[in-house]
């Protein structure tokens, strides 16, 4: 039966065609396709790995950033506290200094006032003395308008002096 006996003509053509197709595809078809698919697969795998690494790095960076941020916040808080403490200290320092200065000024003022007062009193004294002498002179002059009175006067003083001498 011809069904089970291969026809030589078809055998020939089949062998020829198949070998040609297998050769052409083996040279220009499959290597390009399979090679490219493999290469792309490797590329994708690598890219995924890289992406994973990048993600991990990013997470690290985020953590670091968060840490930095919290550190900075703490530092700021500390600085604010320090600043407020310094401010208070400065204010209190200034206050005590001001009080001391004021006291000093007051003291020196008091002193100078005392000095002025003393001077003034001295002045007044001398002026009072002068005035009293002048007044006395004027009074004496009034009394010694005539010669007789004058001589009386002189005698009186001379007596006094004598008496004092004796």
């Amino acid at each position, binding site marked *: 039966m*011809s*069904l089970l006996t291969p*026809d030589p003509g078809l055998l020939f053509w089949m062998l020829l*065609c198949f070998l040609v197709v*297998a050769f052409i595809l083996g040279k220009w078809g499959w290597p390009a396709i*399979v090679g490219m698919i493999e290469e792309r697969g490797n*590329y994708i795998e690598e890219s995924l790995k890289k992406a994973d690494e990048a993600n991990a790095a990013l997470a690290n960076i985020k953590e670091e950033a968060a840490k930095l941020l919290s550190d900075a916040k703490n530092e700021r808080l500390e600085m604010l506290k320090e600043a407020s403490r310094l401010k208070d200290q400065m204010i209190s320092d200034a206050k005590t200094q001001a009080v001391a200065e004021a006291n000093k000024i007051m003291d020196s003022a008091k002193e100078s006032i005392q000095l002025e007062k003393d001077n003034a009193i001295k002045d007044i004294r001398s002026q009072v003395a002068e005035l009293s002498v002048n007044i006395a002179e004027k009074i004496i002059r009034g009394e010694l308008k005539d010669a007789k009175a004058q001589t009386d006067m002189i005698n009186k003083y001379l007596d006094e002096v004598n008496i004092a001498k004796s």
Partner: protein
Amino acid sequence: MSQSINKTMGQTGKVLFIALLCILGVVGIVAFASSETKKDLDLKEMVFGHIGDAYNWHITTVGETHISIPLPCIVYGENGLNVFCASRLGHEGHYKEYNGYKIAEEGDNAGKIIEVSTGQRPVDLSITKNVVSLLISCALLLIIFLSIAKKYNKCKETGYCKPTGLQAILEPLIVSLHDDIIKPSVGKNYKKFSAYLLTVFFFIFLNNVLGIIPIFPGGANLTGNIAVTLVLAVLTFLLTNIFGTKAYWKDIFWPHVPIGLKLPIPIMQFIEILGIFTKPIALCIRLFANMFAGHVMVLVLIGLIFVFSQMSVVAGLGVSVISVLLVVFMSLLECLVCFIQAYVFMTLSALFIGMAQVEEEE
């Protein structure tokens, strides 16, 4: 909401349309079949005429006129090389002599060109129906895979890119065949054989699919032809044994069995050597028988309509409904078989080649 209603309406419409088409088809076939009742129908001849090889590609017959494509005949006989058109030899039932050749009507060479004087077959390299189908499928294979390869190469220049179109359809198939079957089956030397194995798979798959398409470019029963499967099996056989390792040959001539089994009577060697040949023969017969049987089943089921229509129109109608349903079922099954047989042939080839690639055990 309205979109989904439209969609379901569209689907129901489609189903109705297909059903109507089926009914019309059935009625048409029966009407045609009962109009042919005058002639006696030879079911066997019809079936084998369709799945066999021919010098004409018969497309259809309208009334008494055969519409077919005559193919070139190339024969080398007693009077040298002759190339002529098959139409010179006439057509079925009306064979003519040409240049000392004719198509035998009976005997072992029925349907084939013989020399009138001797009744012997000349060297016949005619481009028959199967050869044309083979050329078409080879051209398709080259066009498809070279264009895909070109796409990949183009991609390489511009960096890597997403596969599109045909490339996207075939890439998963190629990758799964290459990575999941060829690599593990053949072993570490897979690169040498992957081109052959991939070509074998797609060659068989494409031809199987073309075989179940009933209109012109398809319809030839190429993978259901023993010559084709024989060539493929012989190639696998050659690749297996030419590239077989030392360990492989040692396993054949000095296998790991009790000494009594290999000396003085070489029983195991005999079995092993037989195994070298039975493996490719099984490959050859399996593919041939599967594809052949599928075609026969479909043709017989269709033929039944004509057989019953000859008895009566009612019987024809009744049988045709069942036949058409069965043919639809068979065709769907064939779609599956197309893939499975290509897959099995390639997987077994890969395994046989892989078995011959064994390394010396330490």
